[in-house]
């Protein structure tokens, strides 16, 4: 069966309970192949929990997750082969240098050494990390850490990229570089889903958007469907139920 025939990622009734607290309360989501999907939500909405369950890092209390038709929890090997992940808070073996980390990633993924060699060097070049040489990742700046994390996620040429807060604490230059690379990746048939709470970025690059709040999907669709001619930020605040200043309070300011 062709991988492109079904959604790149589909979540079915994902639920996560931590003791008494319901972190994610039944999420259904289909991420079409070739889409650039933004998962929006305020802090504590359950974005990280949701994505962790989708990629096999956190066991869901209920529900299923499929990567290109492969059940992440029942058939993890096949699902993970097609999957590249940038977790947040960035989880890496940060006492390796950038090149070492990429080599390590390649060996873990079972790639032949010469393929690791060419791809790692190209990624280091493109991401502007080649100059860092033997500096350990723990000594990298925040932006460099995101970039090496992205390189690790891309190294085995996955069909689906899951990125948790890829633009958090990244300077504009590094941010636009990451955006360009992701764009090129989507144009060549890849699929990206990333979480964020920065509206400008999402509005600029996403084809599809889902808004998550209190562990549930509140709005979902293509960017234009969700926006419905309005500003994305207004829609977001309205959907999430945030308070909008009416002009009556804080009059002493």
């Amino acid at each position, binding site marked *: 069966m062709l991988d492109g025939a079904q959604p790149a990622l589909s979540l079915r009734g994902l639920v996560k309970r931590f003791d008494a607290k319901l972190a994610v309360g039944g999420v259904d989501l289909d991420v079409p192949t070739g889409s650039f999907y933004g998962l929006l939500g305020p802090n504590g909405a359950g974005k990280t929990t949701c994505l962790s369950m989708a*990629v*096999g*890092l*956190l*066991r869901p209390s209920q529900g299923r997750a499929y990567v290109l038709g492969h059940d992440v929890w029942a058939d*993890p*090997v096949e699902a*993970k*082969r097609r*999957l590249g*992940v940038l*977790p947040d*808070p960035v*989880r*890496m*073996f*940060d*006492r*390796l*240098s950038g*090149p*070492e980390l*990429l*080599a*390590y*990633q*390649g*060996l*873990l*993924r*079972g790639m032949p*050494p010469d393929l*690791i*060699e060419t791809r*790692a*060097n190209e990624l280091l070049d493109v991401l502007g990390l*080649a*100059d*860092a*040489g*033997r*500096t*350990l990742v*723990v*000594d990298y700046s925040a932006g460099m850490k995101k970039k090496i994390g992205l390189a*690790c996620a891309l190294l085995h040429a996955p069909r689906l990229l899951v990125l948790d807060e890829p633009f958090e604490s990244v300077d504009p230059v590094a941010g636009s570089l990451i955006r360009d690379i992701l764009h090129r990746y989507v144009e060549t048939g890849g699929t990206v889903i990333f979480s964020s709470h920065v509206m400008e970025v999402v509005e600029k690059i996403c084809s599809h958007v889902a808004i998550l709040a209190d562990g549930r999907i509140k709005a979902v669709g293509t960017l234009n469907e969700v926006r419905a001619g309005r500003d994305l930020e207004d829609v977001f605040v309205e959907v999430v139920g945030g308070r909008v200043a009416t002009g009556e309070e804080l009059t002493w300011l």
Partner: protein
Amino acid sequence: MALMPARPVRVTVFVRLKLRMLAHGLRGRGRRVVTFAVSLAVGLWLAVAGFLLFLTSGAVGRDIGYAMASFGGASLVLGWLLPPLLFFGVDETLDPARFALLPLPRRTLATGMLAGAVVGIPGLATALAMLGVAVAGGLRAGPAGVSVAVLGGALNLLLCVVLSRAVTSGFAALLRSRRVRDLAGVVIALVAASMGPLQLVISSTLGHASLAPALRIARVLGWTPLAAGFVAPYDLADGRPLLVPVRLGIVAGTVALLGWWWAVTLESAMIGVAGGPGGSRPVRDGVVRTLLPAVLRPAARPGQFAGIAARELRYWSRDPRRRSSLISIIVGGAVVPVALRLAPGHSAGVPLPLAVAFTSVAGAAILANQFGFDGSAYAVHLLAGVPGRTELRARAAALSVIMVPVLLVIVVAVAVFGEERGQLIATLGTAAAMYGASMAVASVLSVLVAYPVPDSRNAFASAGGSASAKGLVAFIGMVAAVVSASPVLMAALVLPGRLSWLVLPAGLAWGIAGVLVTTRVIGSELDRRGPDLLGEISLRS
């Protein structure tokens, strides 16, 4: 607007500043006063102890006195050197960085800081101790001895201060980097771990000590800047006054050299260089070769196993938490059998195979929570779908690259020096069985009872409550390893001498089979509960 005319800044300004800051130490809130009082008491105590030591050196026999003066002086100077290296510039009251914005010539700044550094508890304590040198010099060589000793003492005080300052500012850039802080953690771990052995060595040396070797070392020290100033009066007493200016010249020259270096490095200390050298060497040999250490390249095909083993090896040397555990295990593993076998009075007590039992299973103590060291980085393995079996075997293999040679050296050394060469082969067998068992047991524990290890700058920090858990799990692992190797141990104890070689192949087979079978069984358990393990070892923020 015209610039304000600048008057030259005098040294007394710095001294007054320092005195005022010392006085403020007395006025502050509770904790600061206590700290100040404690450091004052410690300083006074050291000063009196040093004074008495140097005083005594003038009153006892010539050779003993010479050795005391030489060793006492050298440790005094080294005592000034170590704290800034370990704790990064102890005395920050006159931190060069705080003067960065003031238009001060380098020379003024350097002399001022120097004067400020002498005025302080350590400087005054040292000066007090030096009085003992002066009195001792008088006892040895009369009034001339006093003047030589005073001059030598003053030069040495200056040396102490300049040395500590030069080291602090010379390495300021380095000391700000994580790499050096990690290193300091290791040094502290090493010092802490070697306290026991040191005691053992000192007490056994004192048992049958003779002065001759000590005196030889003392003479050599007497020609280094460390002790030259302290032994100069002895040249007068020995009737060789021409040597006095040479020795004092050695100290003065060193002071001048360090002073120059200090003045040069002061600027970079004021600005604070970020980054540090060595980082940007290009990678030449290719990324995979960079990751795989030379020891692994011929042994393993590049793949998951080699990759994990390589990364683990790097981590045993790069992660300060792992490094300090490893150091304590190795030092402890060396000390226990030595104490059991070689210490006087115990020689016939414990059989050799049992004496090295602790050394053999010590690895279990640090491997029992091997995933805890990874923390949330273990997610990388989970995402790559590493089979549990490969995971556990690669980790055991990496530690073995370090531990097996160590174990081998310790067992052979204890057998040879303890005059038990006949038992060596059998003991190697039991050691192999117990080592293998410890790796197997540690694999099981690390999968089933994992807990997070906080990543802290302080190598000794541990999460509240987990310290006792850590000790317990490690202890259980070591006991279980000895118990599960007991058949081989029994064989070593009961087999007659000419058959005892059988223990070696039996022990090797037992150990290797133990690791292979256990990692296979617990490996599939790891495959099942990988995500749960990740949750257990990730620190909740």
